[in-house]
């Protein structure tokens, strides 16, 4: 166990170091921008993975929390001239309130019913972004969102924003790794594997599901605020049903119940469209294919599937080497 913990910190450390070095090598803003979006998406996906991959509760409306974060930050700073950091905190508080309001009744549902409830919630929030023109600017979007600043330093260079986004995302990754490898994390996985057994083992599953829903909503809200202050313009179409589906895809490709997989999933699905741009119209077809193929053949996701194979290989090797007693 102790060895395992050290191993995790080694992973986090080396990943952090790698991230810190990137801007020294990559000076091109375009690549830094891509990296920033990967960071924001990673934050979203790590949160959603806690809910979907670990606790096994699907959300087809997660774009709504991303949007709530973005719009609360955006409206408070652009329209009401609040400074961004407090706005971000208010966004989180508001998101938690909404997540509780929806989560308490919704998480009593399971499977398809839960999927549909979160989907309906997502669409309602999207329509509100579109229709509350006086507040959100409606479909034309909201302009004039200020950049973030720390003290007197305005983070308007991709490089500085890159560091900010990844510092927050890395923090979120560490927190998630800690949660996952704890009493709470085990309880979440227990809910996923067998809810009756989890309840019989003394886990208050109903409350835990709501908490993890709220936690993942907080991650999404912070990601939304970071997004809004980065591109300084938001419009409802960034928070529609398709974006929710995209997030689910990132989780799926990266692998359910794998924090590092979430990073991989977010990175792949952020970079892939850029690379696939040459295919133009084909990319939607390819996107659909990825979803189907991964889920049909590797329901645990790409990274997980690969890990499983590695395990199998190692086991075979060990058996061949005779290090396992026949058991």
């Amino acid at each position, binding site marked *: 166990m102790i060895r395992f913990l050290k191993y995790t910190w080694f992973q986090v450390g080396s990943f952090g170091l790698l991230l810190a070095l990137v801007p020294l090598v990559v000076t091109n803003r375009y690549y830094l921008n891509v990296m920033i979006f990967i960071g924001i998406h990673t934050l979203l996906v790590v949160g959603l993975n806690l809910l979907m991959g670990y606790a096994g509760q699907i959300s087809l409306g997660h774009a709504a929390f991303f949007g709530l974060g973005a719009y609360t930050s955006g409206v408070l700073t652009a329209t009401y001239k609040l400074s961004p950091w407090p706005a971000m905190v208010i966004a989180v508080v508001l998101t938690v309130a909404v997540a509780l309001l929806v989560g308490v009744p919704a998480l009593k*549902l399971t499977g398809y019913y839960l*999927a549909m409830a979160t989907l309906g*919630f997502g669409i309602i929030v999207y329509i509100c972004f579109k*229709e509350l023109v006086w507040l959100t600017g409606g479909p034309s979007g909201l302009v004039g969102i200020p950049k973030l600043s720390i003290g007197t330093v305005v983070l308007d260079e991709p490089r500085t924003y890159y560091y900010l986004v990844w510092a927050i995302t890395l923090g979120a990754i560490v927190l998630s790794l800690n949660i996952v490898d704890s009493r709470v994390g085990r309880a979440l996985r227990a809910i996923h594997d067998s809810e009756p057994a989890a309840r019989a083992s003394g886990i208050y599953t109903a409350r835990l599901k709501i908490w993890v829903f709220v936690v993942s909503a907080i991650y999404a809200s912070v990601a939304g605020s970071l997004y809004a202050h980065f591109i300084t313009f938001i419009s409802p179409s960034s928070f529609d049903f398709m974006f929710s*589906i995209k997030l689910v895809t990132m989780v799926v490709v990266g692998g359910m119940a794998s924090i590092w997989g979430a990073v991989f999933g977010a990175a792949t699905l952020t970079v892939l469209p850029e690379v696939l741009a040459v295919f133009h119209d084909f990319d939607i077809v390819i996107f659909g294919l990825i*979803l*189907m193929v991964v*889920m049909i053949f590797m*329901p645990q996701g790409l990274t997980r599937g690969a890990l499983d194979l590695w395990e199998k290989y190692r086991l075979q090797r060990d058996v061949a080497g005779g290090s396992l007693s026949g058991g």
Partner: protein
Amino acid sequence: MDLSSQILQYVISGITNGAIYAVIALGFTIIYNSTEVINFAQGEFVMLGGMAVIALDGNGHLPLGFSFLLAVLAVTLVGIALERFTIRPAKSSNPIALIIITVGASIFLRGLAMMFWGKDSLGLRAFTGSSPIHFGGATLIPQSLWVLGVTVVVMAALQFFYKHTITGKAMRACAFNRRAAGLVGIGVNRMVMVSFALSAAIGAAAGIVIVPITLCGYDVGIMLGLKGFCAAVLGGLGSSPGSILGGFLLGVLEALGAGLISSGFKDAIAFFVLLLVLFLRPSGLLGSKEVKRF
């Protein structure tokens, strides 16, 4: 124009749309009962039906009835392929995996339709004339009658199929208890395939009859599918009469909401009703099956 004829007009619009929702909801129900899968690609069957009939009617200059049948047949094959190549090989029976697979399938089909027929919406001539029929201060177009007629025929045919054919009875047995059905020698796999075929066929039929009213484009399937699912849940997932009731109810509610409350929030009203039903009575209006607790 007085309020009562206004409301009559909303109800007429609502019933026409509701009929389509009802048929889509029935499609969900057929598949759900035999497999416990919610097929998120259901709306794409409707879209494919519409696009196929436009292509056949517009390019082939075939008689309309023939295009109709051919389009239904083509989409039925798509339904069978969907089952054969995505649902059956899926290793997992976990709802999350199945939801994502069918969502992926729907995106895939949408993409193919876009590559095939382009991104523009297309229209089709009305089956029989387009001069509106007036009554009670409201108006109705002949195509709406076609929509209602086809809906009724689909429902009746389905009823007959379930009650009076061997395959239909076997499917009901599967819906009741898959394992027991398998034990008494019913080919459960075949029943699943039949249910996909059926559901694709009636989805396509719905798509075909509405095209003259609503036009059709590669991306109309998402919303229709979601609304159909709302209808199915509203009526009670797994219940055929529930689906029909849910469909009409949703259509009328939506039209009244758009007319009397706010057209901008029209879709929000539909989904708000869905949330209320899910939160207060997840088994729906006519649902018999208890919502699974574990």
